């Protein structure tokens, strides 16, 4: 196992390298650059700007520059927000997204699983239908609908929470965004858990356990659940990576200063360095969480082996 983990860490490096390279050249294919805007720039000034950001050099030279800086931990300045370096933008935004994402992930996994298990235990009865109905609605309503609804109802009508803003991290400011992020994930987790739990409960060894007179709790939690966890874990890996890097919709509607918006805005603004920063960020998260997920597979199901 340890050897496997070490090997995975080693393969992470070429993976990251491939990601960075493809992303770098993929970006340049898109038409337009960071300095095209409604008030078109005077060509002389545009040339000056491009010179300062090394955009006038041949592409391969820019790539090498970028790699060299990257290895030193320098992600470069943001092209469209030149007052800040990419690293500074992440330093101020990442903790915000991480907080919200972690809370949402935990809630979704815990509550979602609980609901899914409950529904599975009462398959085809009223509770089951209720949970499935709620989960379906939850997974079909997009975040850009949940967020304004929350704002209208809980903030403007009931005045329990502010409409938006981060408020320096105050708890009441987090409720809206976390709820919005959690709901769809919770629904998906509940459905997946219900489905796989039902399958697991039908397995032979569960029948044996029941016949042996084991308590319900023991049967469900210690035996059936283990078999049911696999799809949840598989889903949770990429879901975690996505949640922790922030959601552009939630952050825009609630005016949260996270990094989620950069994934979209930076691309639309052709802010090359910021885009590369987001690529590296999500690459790291993806590789990390996939490793965790693969380890968990082996833990949950002892039959899984990697050699």
């Amino acid at each position: 196992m340890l050897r496997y983990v070490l090997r995975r860490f080693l393969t992470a490096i070429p993976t990251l390298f491939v990601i960075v390279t493809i992303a770098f050249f993929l970006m340049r294919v898109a038409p337009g650059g960071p300095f095209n805007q409604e008030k078109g720039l005077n060509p002389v000034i545009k040339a000056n700007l491009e010179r300062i950001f090394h955009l006038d050099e041949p592409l391969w030279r820019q790539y090498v520059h970028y790699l060299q800086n990257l290895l030193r931990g320098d992600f470069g300045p943001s092209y469209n927000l030149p007052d800040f370096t990419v690293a500074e933008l992440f330093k101020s935004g990442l903790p915000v997204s991480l907080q919200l994402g972690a809370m949402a992930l935990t809630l979704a996994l815990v509550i979602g699983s609980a609901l899914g298990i409950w529904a599975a235990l009462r398959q085809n009865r009223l509770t089951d239908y209720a949970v499935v109905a709620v989960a379906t609605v939850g997974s079909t309503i997009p975040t850009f609908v949940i967020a304004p609804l929350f704002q209208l109802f809980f903030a403007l009508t009931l005045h329990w929470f502010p409409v938006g803003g981060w408020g320096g991290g105050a708890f009441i400011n987090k409720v809206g965004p976390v709820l919005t992020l959690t709901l769809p994930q919770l629904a998906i987790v509940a459905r997946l858990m219900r489905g796989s739990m039902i399958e697991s409960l039908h397995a032979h060894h569960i029948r044996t356990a029941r016949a042996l007179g084991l308590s319900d709790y023991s049967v469900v939690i210690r035996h059936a659940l283990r078999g049911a966890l696999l799809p949840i874990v598989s889903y949770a890996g990429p879901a975690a990576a996505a949640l922790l890097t922030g959601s552009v919709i939630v952050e825009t509607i609630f005016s949260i200063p996270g990094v989620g918006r950069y994934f979209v805005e930076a691309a639309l603004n052709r802010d090359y360095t910021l885009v590369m920063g987001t690529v590296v960020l999500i690459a790291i998260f993806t590789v990390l969480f996939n490793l965790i997920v693969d380890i968990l597979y082996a833990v949950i199901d002892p039959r899984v082996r990697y050699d």
Partner: protein
Amino acid sequence: MNMNFKSWLVGTTMLVMGTTGAFAEVVFNRGNSADPESLDPHKTSTIYEADILRDLFLGLTTEDAKSEIIPGAAESWTVSPDGKVYTFKLRAGALWSDGSPVTAHDFVFAWQRVVDPATAGEYAYMLAPVVNAEDITAGKKKPDEMGVKAVDDSTFEVTLNAPTPYFLEMLTHQATYPVSRANVEAKGADFTKPGNLVSNGPYTLAEFIPNDHIKVVKNPKFYDAANVKIDTVNFIPTEDRSTAMKRFEAGELDSNNDLPTEQLTDLKAKFGDQIKIGPYLGTYYYAFKITKAPWDNLKLRHAISEAIDRDYLAEKVWQNSMIPAYSFVPPGITGYETRTTDYAEMSQIDREDAARKVLAELGYGPDNPLKMEIRSNTSENHKNTAIAIQEQLKPLGVEVTYLNTDTKTHYGHLEQHGDFDVARAGWIADYKDPENFLALCKSGTGNNYSEYTDKGYDDLLAKAAASADPAERMKSLSEAEAVGVARDLCVLPLLYYSYKNIVSSKLKGWEDNVMDRHPSRFLSKE
């Protein structure tokens, strides 16, 4: 944990101070559409930055609450008889926020910095009237050859290429703001960070948290600090306009500088006269690719132009937040006569009949439709406008298709002179002068998306640039508009912009003006 304790501490302190009758801090939460790209006044380009910088810095001239020119960092000035040399006497005793005096050397340093190619300031061309400025930006001359001089510590002299009547107006633009030479030289690129930034205006920079807020606090060293009523201004980026409305309703914002147009009728019903809409110096237009057939046919261009029902667009699509436009330069510039196309006063039915006739002559009709693709950048309003035009032109035998791309792709395409039929663009005035608009149709200008070129037009603009008499100059510019726009339709003007603000009734001193500039120093809050 830390954050909460600190805010608790601040809160309790303020409570104590409030109850003991000490001053209560006046805070103005100002919705500002977007975060600034930079707080370096010489590197900025958008109006969102301008609004923030206007509160931080003070240029030679500045504007009052009604956006009229008043003395700023310069308390008086004289102009040489030939109109080319301006001598500014700086305000005695003016200080930077770090206590050092504001000197003419700071202005020299700042202006040279703007045009320096190493700075790559996007608005370097703003100082083009100054001797050698353009050559410096192009790298042909050195920055210290610029036509600016510090005669002594409190006298700043500028030499221009030609008399420039709008020069004083230009000085309100942030590209001309001073920066403290000592500060910039000491801190380098970091001088824009809170704590480092030294400013000479009514406020200083306290915090800048990207995508969250920018906090500026009253500058005690400002010469007019006694009259500045608002202690703290929080500039809050509000890209999602629907959320901004909700935040305003909840009291989290005291004002916002944009409104969701499709909801205007409902918003007006809800917020009454807190909604402020009025004319703004900007034009929304379509550009034909004049170098491509059939758009090189002048009669065809006019036919399309007169067939479009701008009243409908203004009233129904933009909910009366825009005004129909038949000229490129919007009304509102004193001394200038806008020239409109000759069908501006015709009834819509007559216009459509005329258009139909022209199209028929050229062989187009419902059996042989003219294909026209409208391109724009992604936005609800641009889309609704194009859809409405699509329906308007259909009965005339014009088949309109609509293509939207993201902003960078759109302007990148236009800049590269890519292929298109009709493309949407807009122009907001940098300063109150018609030349700012008319320059867009000059041959070879970067923003001349339609690639219009006409010697007569260029000559008229050159004549205006060389005139010493302001009235003469305005006349030449007006004639240029008559040629380029009214006659040749170098751009297809559709609508004039309006400013759209929502301002809390608790905010006092807000004066609507055509430049939509509202420095915080003239506002107060009850």
